[in-house]
């Protein structure tokens, strides 16, 4: 009798561990949010952005870069390459994208911030990366972005690089 019970218990471990493998997905997300790993940037509402106090004495360089993933047939570039910003103040800029193909295309921009530890201090109130972007054939679009750099940004960071990679997500939708 003792034997059957302990054996049955043993089978529970692998089943639980299989679940644990899947549990690592949300754990990893939480971990990334906390540490800014993979540049998972923060997002806050406009109202929240209003109440942050502005640090006039500090200037941070924010660089904008763009990449295209394989098969993404867009022209995709930031309108300005970099800005000097005061932490706590809200700034707007944009990226332009041109669909190079003769058909309707859907794209998704994925943000990434470097250095990684700056990511959680980089808050966006509005971003084209929040949604998938639909393009008519050969359409050109100006895609806005509004952000606030948190004044709590560690002192040793003077440059923050924001990168967007544009992915073709048509196959994902169909």
């Amino acid at each position: 009798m003792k034997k059957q019970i302990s054996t049955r218990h043993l089978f529970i471990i692998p089943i639980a561990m299989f679940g644990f493998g899947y549990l690592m997905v949300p754990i990893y997300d939480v971990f990334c949010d906390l540490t800014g790993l993979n540049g998972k940037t923060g997002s806050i509402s406009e109202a929240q952005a209003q109440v942050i106090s502005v640090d006039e004495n500090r200037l941070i360089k924010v660089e904008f870069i763009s990449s295209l993933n394989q098969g993404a047939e867009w022209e995709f570039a930031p309108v300005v390459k970099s800005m000097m910003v005061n932490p706590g103040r809200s700034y707007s800029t944009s990226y332009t994208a041109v669909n190079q193909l003769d058909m309707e295309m859907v794209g998704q921009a994925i943000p990434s911030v470097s250095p990684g530890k700056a990511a959680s201090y980089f808050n966006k109130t509005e971003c084209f990366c929040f949604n998938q972007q639909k393009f008519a054939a050969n359409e050109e679009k100006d895609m806005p972005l509004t952000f606030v750099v948190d004044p709590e940004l560690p002192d040793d960071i003077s440059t923050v690089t924001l990168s967007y990679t544009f992915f073709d997500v048509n196959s994902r939708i169909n």
Partner: protein
Amino acid sequence: MNAQATDAHHDSDHDHHGPAPGLMRWVTTTNHKDIGTLYLWFSLIMFFIGGLMALVIRSELFQPGLQLVDPHFFNQMTTMHALVMIFGVVMPAFVGLANWMLPMMIGAPDMALPRMNNWSFWILPFGFAMMLSTLLMEGGGPAAGWTLYPPLSLQTGDAFPFLIFSIHLLGVSSIMGAINIVATIMNLRAPGMTFMKMPLFVWTWFITAYLLIAVMPVLAGAVTMLLTDKFFGTSFFDAAGGGDPVMFQHIFWFFGHPEVYILILPSFGLVSEIIPTFSRKRLFGYSSMVYATASIAFLSFIVWAHHMFTVGMPLAGEIFFMFTTMLIAVPTGVKVFNWVSTMWRGAMTFETPMLFALGFVVMFTIGGFSGLMLAMTPIDFQYHDTYFVVAHFHYVLVPGAIYGIIGGVYYWLPKWTGNMYSESLGKMHFWLSTIFVNVLFFPMHFVGLAGMPRRIPDYSVQFADFNQIATIGAFGFGFSQILLLVLVVKCIRGGEKATDQVWEGAEGLEWTVSSPAPYHTFSPQPVIK
């Protein structure tokens, strides 16, 4: 505790005088010795298949330029070589040795779950038939490395679902085998066989089995996520859908690092059986050996990210994983010091099992040293994904894990067959293997440090000399293994009769039964005082 004891045994499942006749004996067997034999033969066959793949790799690398195979096929060979050697050779060999010896070492009549035991073996040939058949499919077999990193692994052709299912099968087989071992050790120890009296091979397997049960399902989860990413539109590892390819590496190595210890802990146990026997002296620091094994197993869960120092982790992560990884050197060092202390002031003789055990201690330690170097994050940036890493893990796996297994086979072969093997052939096998294994793997340290990346089919001419030496070593080592096959076959056919104790210094329950060990042992169970 001898042949007479088995005659009193009554088992409703089969003929209690011996095995069923004919081929069906092997298909339907629930006898732990038969299943152990099946596992060991399977492992030997896979050893030669995986070895042939290694020879394809080394032949292409004999000189710069592409001569023999397409780079894509080369990548399939490196991938399959690893999968076959890990899941088809080392793990089944350990399970085979456990099947044969665990019940005899703890005084149990058989494994606790004999029918499941049959299943866990017979899943293996099917799993591997499926995995190897992918080589013939459109687009070829898996070529993304055994670590299956996406997005590259998602570029695999038709082979992909077959690969994933075969990994599931192998996982199910190992989990069932591990559960069986835990159940046997927990429930079927002879009266008086307390935990702290168990032989070290039993202990290391007990801990290994828990590792297996804990991490094989995580691998199953990870590859299932790959499968759904490829075919069912999920995006666990695809940035476009909010996933992250690096997360796969975290999940994979959460399995992968304990897996590395699954591949070595039972060999620690084997060496801890062999060295005391041929030193004619009790194992030094038995309890610290047990604790060291347990702490290695524990640490294996918190070091995984040292396989991926270059993915761009936060600084704190890099420092944490560097510290924990370096800590592993402490219990591992304790084990090595204990083995050396066991030999110290013993009365050593150097039969083949002892030679392999000594080779293990020396060469595993060399692999441990390069492991320590790799643990240090800032310098690992230079070593990462070079031949230095290839040299490191082959030193701990070939003259490490495999030497442990071969030593164990020589050690118990007379008990299995009833005949002594040819000592001169055995010694020749040892010396040829040891010379060639170093000719094969030592130069890899040099080319790695000089800057040769791993997993490349062709290289710059400055690496040519050492690659040539390594290839010569590979052929030498590969062909030396034929001696093992010859020796085992000869030993089964006949030879000088072995005594029950076989080795002068041997202690333990398995040496109290007759040689060859009767089909059923230890029913009734012996009592250990």
